């Protein structure tokens, strides 16, 4: 499964991007050997919480390693649309910021620890490998991301809308989707003068 996605990825228009990304990462690693890595991906700490940043191609391989390494539960899968994020994003060297980010959190029951994975997903090709076969508990969470953010997960058995009606257009949590505020009309209470 993991290999499939990887080849599928490289087959798409992503070839160059993936290459440069990989190259970037290599140079980054050479230049700054003290960058902490885990499962072959750069590690950052956000408010003391451990975050790893695999590339989209590596992602499922990393997930296989995570599962083998005792991260036995995938507690959360969500996503962020960084379209209108005003400030520079803190990403380790070698990771290219993209519009979307898929964020998955894992827990290890034996070690009582958490780890978070952030994957950059480009806005023009919002797809990423599905965790379903590895962590079936990600089923609904991935569907929710698909529904509200429009990122589809390859290999998921049922990539369909979960919260919005099936016929709904658009993905509400994207930053270019309006909140949909309807202006409120206030009526003067009966008897009080209204202009």
């Amino acid at each position: 499964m993991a290999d499939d996605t990887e080849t599928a990825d490289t087959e798409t228009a992503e070839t160059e991007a993936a290459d440069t990304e990989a190259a970037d990462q290599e140079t980054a690693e050479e230049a700054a050997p003290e960058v902490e890595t885990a499962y072959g991906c750069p590690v950052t700490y956000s408010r003391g919480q451990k975050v790893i940043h695999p590339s989209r191609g590596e992602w499922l391989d990393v997930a296989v390693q995570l599962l083998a390494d005792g991260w036995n539960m995938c507690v959360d899968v969500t996503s962020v649309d960084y379209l209108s994020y005003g400030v520079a994003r803190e990403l380790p060297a070698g990771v290219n910021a993209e519009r979307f980010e898929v964020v998955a959190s894992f827990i290890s029951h034996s070690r009582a620890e958490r780890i978070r994975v952030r994957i950059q997903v480009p806005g023009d090709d919002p797809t990423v490998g599905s965790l379903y076969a590895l962590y079936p508990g990600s089923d609904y969470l991935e569907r929710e991301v698909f529904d509200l953010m429009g990122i589809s997960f390859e290999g998921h058995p049922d990539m369909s809308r979960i919260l919005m009606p099936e016929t709904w257009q658009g993905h509400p949590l994207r930053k270019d989707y309006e909140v949909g505020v309807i202006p409120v009309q206030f009526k003067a209470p009966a008897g009080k003068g209204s202009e």
Partner: protein
Amino acid sequence: MTLITNVQDQGLEGLDHNVITAPIEQLVNWARARSSWPATFGLACCAIEMMATGGSHYDLARLGMEVFRASPRQADVMIVAGRVSQKMAPVLRQIYDQMMEPKWVISMGVCASSGGMFNNYAIVQGVDQIVPVDVYAPGCPPGPETLLHAITTLHTKIETGELLQRRQETGAGANLTVEQLDGQGVSQVVQIGKKA
């Protein structure tokens, strides 16, 4: 039959039991008001308060309303308790259509009444866009007292027959708004800072 002949023969002296005379319409309305069964339409947080109203402390049974009917065919009042999403709206209308006439709608909580604080893509901004509403109960959530107030208001209107008439004329609901009686709506002076 004897009753009628007795009355015919002796006038009102012929009555040997208690008898109430009233126009049939009044009797029907009285009966309707006292056994208006609600349809379960609990949606969100307000539904919990609606169920609490049915619980032992507030005891909706006093008003002949404790039988929440799951089948719309057996229900008279629909208490829309909670926010109505775009996905739920068609279901709500369908259930309303399945209810027998005469039927009434109480919109419970600000979400059902106006969308409340959720003015966004997902929530219908007021259930009155979908079904006619007779009584609005304000609050988020309206406490059981407010809901009871809304219910008794509705009952009064049913009993006087006002509500039936109005509906016949316009097809719209009565659009009454009751006061919030549960003490949660008024802003109280809270001592901020040190403990008193």
